[in-house]
C-alpha cells in the first residue's frame, strides 16, 4: 500500500522565516492534499495538488507526480502557523487518503 514520509518531523522558526516541508510517497497518486492540524486537533484543508504548482496566500505547493514527491512552502511564517502539517496522497486505485506522520512547525516571535 501507499507509504508516506514527511520531513522534517519538526521545524522551529523565527517569525518571518520561510518553511519548506517535504512529502515523499511510494505509489502514484491521483490526488494529494495538504492539511493543517492545530494544536487543539482541528483539521484544515490547505491545498489539493496532485501535480504541478499551486498557490494560495502564503502557501505554495509543488508536486512532481513522476517522482512521487510534494512540497509545501510557507512564506513569512507567523506564530499562528504553528501546528502540524499533514500530507495525504490517495492510495493508488482507491479513494482513501493515506496520511503521513506530519511535520510539527513551531514559529516563535
Amino acid at each position: 500500500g501507499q507509504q508516506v514520509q514527511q520531513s522534517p518531523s519538526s521545524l522551529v522558526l523565527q517569525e518571518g522565516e520561510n518553511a519548506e516541508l517535504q512529502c515523499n510517497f511510494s505509489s502514484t497518486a491521483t490526488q494529494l492534499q495538504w492539511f493543517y492540524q492545530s494544536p487543539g486537533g482541528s483539521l484544515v484543508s490547505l491545498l489539493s495538488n496532485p501535480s504541478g504548482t499551486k498557490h494560495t496566500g502564503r502557501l505554495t505547493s509543488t508536486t512532481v507526480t513522476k517522482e512521487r514527491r510534494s512540497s509545501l512552502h510557507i512564506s513569512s511564517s507567523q506564530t499562528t502557523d504553528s501546528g502540524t502539517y499533514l500530507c495525504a496522497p490517495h492510495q493508488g486505485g482507491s479513494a482513501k487518503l493515506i496520511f503521513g506522520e506530519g511535520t510539527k512547525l513551531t514559529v516563535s516571535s
Partner: protein
Amino acid sequence: GPKVLQIPSHQIIDMGQMVTLNCDPVSNHLYFYWYKQILGQQMEFLVNFYNGKVMEKSKLFKDQFSVERPDGSYFTLKIQPTALEDSAVYFCASSLGDRGDTQYFGPGTRLLVL
C-alpha cells in the same frame, strides 16, 4: 469553502454502550468517509461509502462498526458495543467524486470510552 459538520463535538460513554456519530456532508457530495485519529498518532482511514454501500474499509473497521446514510440525512458511524480502544477523534469527510476529488473534512468528534 464547502463545510462538513459533525455532531456531537465531544462524547463520553461507558465501555459496552452504543454510540452514533453524525456527519452532515457537503450537500451535493456523493462519497463519504470516516477517518480515525488516536491521540498523538496518525490519521487512519476507516471506511468509505457511496450509493448506500460500503465501498472500501480498513482493518480498523471492526465488526462492531457500521455506517449508513438513510434517505439523504446524516451520514452516521455507529459503534456497538464500544471498547476502550475506540477512544479517538473521528473525522468525517465527503467528496463529489472519488479518486481524483478533494475530500472536505469536518471538525471531528472526540470520543472517550471509559
